[in-house]
């Protein structure tokens, strides 16, 4: 069960993202926290990495590790970046906490050729069970908050996110459906993925594959 701790889940998520990034590319990590992913990408993939992080503690941790990170907010500060500045713009476990996820994605689409987004899947059967059968707001290891204190204000399912990509004209290149220690590579996620994936990672692109 150790794989199901939030820490272990987070690490799987980061490793999967790192796997999707081509070596030597230019990467912007939006909501980079203490810089774990940027550090991984710069040591393993030799990327030229930049980060945005809201918390002063996170920024300080990044700067101390030699990472180039600015204090800022996904909702506000992405518009300051020029078009086509990055090969990849990454939003890891952050989209559900943004005020305007559609606008954030649109900005990412403008800034980067490819976008990688990871998020907890609100369509997972355990979440549905808690709400549908018990009639309570779901609390799981990926969504470990009560309804009254959660920062996660824009939760979505795998199918919801795929639909938004379609609306924005983003082409899904690859998705990874994560559940426990399972990592399934899926070209186009379906209803079954929406029921069994705890987390999802989407690699999407402006241009058709």
């Amino acid at each position, binding site marked *: 069960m150790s794989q199901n701790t939030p820490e272990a889940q987070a690490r799987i998520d980061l490793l999967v993202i790192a796997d999707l990034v081509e070596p030597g590319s230019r990467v912007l990590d939006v909501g980079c926290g203490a810089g774990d992913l940027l550090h991984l990408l710069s040591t393993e993939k030799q990327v030229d990495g930049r980060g945005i992080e809201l918390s002063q503690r996170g920024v*300080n941790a990044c*700067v*101390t*590790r*030699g990472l180039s990170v*600015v204090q800022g907010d996904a909702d506000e500060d992405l518009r300051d970046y020029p078009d086509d500045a990055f090969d990849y713009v990454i939003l890891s476990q952050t989209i559900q906490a943004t005020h305007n996820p559609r606008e954030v994605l649109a900005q990412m689409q403008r800034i980067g050729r490819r976008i990688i987004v990871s998020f907890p899947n609100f369509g997972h059967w355990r979440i549905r069970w808690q709400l549908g059968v018990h009639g309570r707001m779901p609390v799981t290891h990926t969504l470990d908050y009560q309804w009254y204190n959660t920062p996660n204000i824009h939760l979505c399912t795998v199918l919801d996110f795929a639909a938004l990509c379609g609306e924005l004209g983003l082409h899904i290149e690859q998705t990874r459906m994560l559940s426990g220690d399972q990592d399934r590579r899926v070209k186009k996620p379906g209803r079954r993925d929406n029921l069994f994936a705890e987390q999802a990672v989407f690699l999407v692109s402006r241009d058709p594959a």
Partner: protein
Amino acid sequence: MTSKTTFEIGIDDTLDCGSERSKIEEKKRSDMSDTQNTNATGGPASTLNHQAHSATFGTDEPLTLDSGVSLSPFTIGYNTYGTLNDDKSNVVLVCHALTGDQHAASPNPTNQKAGWWQAIIGPGKTIDTDRFFVICTNVIGGCHGSTGPQDENPETGKPYGMSFPVITIADMVRAQTKLIDRLGIQSLFCVIGGSMGGMQALQWAVDYPERVFSAIPLATAPRHSAQNIAFHEVGRQAVMADPEWHDGDYYEHDTRPHKGLAVARMAAHITYLSEAALFRKFDRNLQDADKISYGFGADFQIESYLRYQGTSFVDRFDANSYLYITRATDYFDLARDHDNVLAKAFINVKTRFCVVSFTSDWHYPTAYSKEIVKALNAAAGNVSFVEIDTDKGHDAFFLDEPEMIATLTGFISSAAQQRGLNS
């Protein structure tokens, strides 16, 4: 000024650094008499290795200013701390603020007060003199050893006064390059400074990108705003309105425009603090127990504090230098020479930047720092940015702010690693 003595202990240029400085071990003062290359090492066996210097550039090495005027001869007073390594790659240039001086990490010889950045610079400190060779110069136009309006105009044999040429931030940097060249230093590991010092750090990276490995502009701005200029103009008019100013020729009249300069300092000092800090420190507290005087004495502690700031300032600063240096910051506009697009100033700049602002700074608010960050990002620059949460206002960069220290320490040590400067 009856209440002046109340604040003489514990309060220096900022609300809190006085007490902080008192904790710092006093290093033996060095002799700053105007001798060349005086070796006056500070203190007991420490690696601060403080040396006070003065470098003069003769008529064969004139300083060509932005105004087109050529300043010659000119002198730069500067202090060094630490030891230059063999390949001269460990140089940290520390740039002082508006009314600062070169005594960053050693006591000021004029008043024996601790160096203005002794909390940051020294053995084992954030700017570690065991690792780095620190240079701090008095800016050109200043009054602490570098050529300024109080010095003799060779054409007249009298002090320059208002015949001193108007200088800019770029001129200050240009003068520093003359010194760096003379010392045989090709590249600076880091240029760091707060406020006007931050402007110099930015100017260095923009004008000499291949010579600056990293830059740390703190609590600064890419240009002076209308409000910044407005406050400076109030200060300059206060100096000029003082009858003792004599159109800048007060040296000849053996007097000083102390009253005007003190008012200028008082007005400016308010902009370096924050309302929250004033409330915390002073609120409406009365100077004399619990009664008001129904007069115009310094009833309130804040009045007494400001009067002390004004009167203590005039002892250490030349009024004409104040006019020239405030003018230099007013003229500062990094984008102006780059089609008014700040990002264009940073194209091809490979310098690593760490930009720091403070939440309660209304002199150079965070929005100004964000303009710098935005422009660097637009130019594909390499920038880190932190906004430090503090109520201590603009002058917070002088203080031992733990979050600032953590940021600077982290950035400097990782930059040193990237530069191959291992301790």
